[in-house]
């Protein structure tokens, strides 16, 4: 009879704990309590550097101001008939501001959450983290929650600054739909970050992989332009990204005063994509983790 070494370990551990209270059964996929602890820990570290929030609130301005100046140079103002026919909105400034505000969340999912394990590796704590008695995905989920909180603080700064600099205002009724759409998008990208973390475990160098993935998402998401201007073959790719539906819905809510009932297609699509991204993300991460551990390359750079 072939015996699984793991079952022998379990049996031996059972013998050792005989007579003691039955050990708590560990969750197999995600331990939410461990994720909460990891999130608290990450937030505690982030709060030690309050300047980070300010920097990440200001930095994206440097990234999208060139687009605004380019728009002014190309159109001679802040509106364009061509832009209206492509996007449905003549004024490109609020369009760009909303696009970039939403993209900061995408960016933080890809860079922050996707690279979590690599940062742990650089800090020398990856192996100890992998030895905690909780599924590895809990580590990533904890990092994603912490990242969502810190990004929200920075994004609030960015949004506030943009309102002041460009003299923009949005209806208060847009807040609820925008928050719902944003939340659903973040959930989807958390699943995406699971997959990315798995790839980083395998390929090791996160800078290039992350840059590549981030740039492709950036091109396919309607941040600066509508997806109509993408080549025909690229348009379906844009439609499998949660950021596309989130941005379309958010703009409709904030710029065209659409309410939740009008946004149901975006919401349903986001829910479907969330389920798909989580399922695929978890699967890919587990395959990548198994591959890395089997090859013994976890600690390698």
């Amino acid at each position, binding site marked *: 009879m072939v015996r699984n070494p793991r079952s022998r370990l379990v049996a031996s551990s059972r013998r050792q704990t005989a007579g003691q209270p039955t050990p708590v059964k560990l969750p197999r996929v995600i331990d939410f309590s461990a994720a909460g602890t990891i999130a608290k820990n990450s937030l505690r570290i982030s709060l030690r550097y309050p300047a980070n929030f300010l920097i990440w609130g200001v930095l994206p301005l440097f990234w999208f101001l060139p687009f605004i100046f380019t728009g002014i140079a*190309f159109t001679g103002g802040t509106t364009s008939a061509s832009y209206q026919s492509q*996007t449905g909105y003549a004024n*490109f400034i609020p369009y760009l501001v909303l696009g970039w505000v939403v993209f900061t969340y995408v960016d933080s999912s890809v860079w922050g959450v996707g690279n979590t394990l690599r940062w742990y590796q*650089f800090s020398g704590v990856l192996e100890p983290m992998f030895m905690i008695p909780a599924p590895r995905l809990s580590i990533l989920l904890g990092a994603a929650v912490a990242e969502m909180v810190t990004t929200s603080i920075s994004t609030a700064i960015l949004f506030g600054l943009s309102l002041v600099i460009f003299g923009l205002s949005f209806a208060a009724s847009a807040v609820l739909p925008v928050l719902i759409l944003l939340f659903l998008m973040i959930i989807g990208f958390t699943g995406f970050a699971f997959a990315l973390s798995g790839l980083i475990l395998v390929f090791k160098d996160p800078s290039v992989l992350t840059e590549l993935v981030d740039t492709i998402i950036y091109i396919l998401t309607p941040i600066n*332009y509508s997806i109509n*201007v993408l080549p025909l073959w690229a348009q379906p790719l844009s439609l499998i990204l949660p950021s596309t539906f989130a941005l379309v819905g958010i703009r409709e809510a904030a710029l065209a005063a659409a309410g939740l009932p009008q946004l149901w297609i975006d919401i349903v699509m986001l829910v479907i994509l969330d389920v798909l991204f989580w399922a695929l993300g978890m699967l890919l991460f587990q395959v990548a983790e198994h591959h890395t551990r089997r090859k013994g390359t976890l600690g390698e750079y």
Partner: protein
Amino acid sequence: MPKRKAKEGPPGGGGLRYQVSIAWRLSIKQWREELAYPLTLLYFVVSPVLTLLPLLLYGYALTGSGTSASLGGLTYTSDWFAYSALGFSLASLINSCLWGTGMALRREQWAGTLESLYVTPVSRFTMLFGSAIHNVQHGGLGVILQLTVSALVFGLRVNLAGILPALLAVALMVIGLQGFVLFFAAVVLLARRAWMAVELLVGSIRLLTPMSYPIVVLPVMLQTVAQGVPTYQALEAFRQFLLLGPFTPAAWSSLGLLLVLDALVVVLGWIVFRASDGFVRYRAGIGKF
């Protein structure tokens, strides 16, 4: 036959040739590190297209064509694609030089090799110079790739007679960038979270070095500041030489101003780096994060 006696004693500090050869080896080491990751090569090849695409799509969404009357009124060309593609091609070189070399010491610190490097008989400037050689090669190849893609795929046409003076503008820009790099390296040594300062400074330089817009669209105060940024003068000269040809007086005057700015920036960067290096060593803070 008697064995040739090996050179004794540390050659550090002496011999320009020795320092240059070390810098060259450091640059090769950096290439080896980069090419050890197969994805790096892939990204290097596709990045010229990937960085250009968003601008191309955005410009098309704004204008609906390849020209912009508004840009024509503000500059010497209404061909927004040619104007922006030339600007963006230099962006990869600027980024590579500023980020790559500016953060070189920090990367050694992360890898735990900064102290080891500091005790080798090599000047600090040689370490930065080695990284600079690598990043100029890396960024320079990026410029060539991007211009080739722009010409072959998107139909960019340049004035071939303007290539040599345009290369001169690039060379002078690279010299000016080393001043910024020395300054960034000084910040990296002094500040634990130097990337913030570097990120802000790089962002400011990029904003004031308009890749796809003329500086007249900037607020008046920023226009004045931009005039004193070497990368702006270099980019303007580069673009005018390639679009209007070598006999463009405005481009040559930009080059003249660039020479003066280069001297200023490099001397200032050198002073700041020397001072911060001395300070950090005095405070024994080399290994601190």
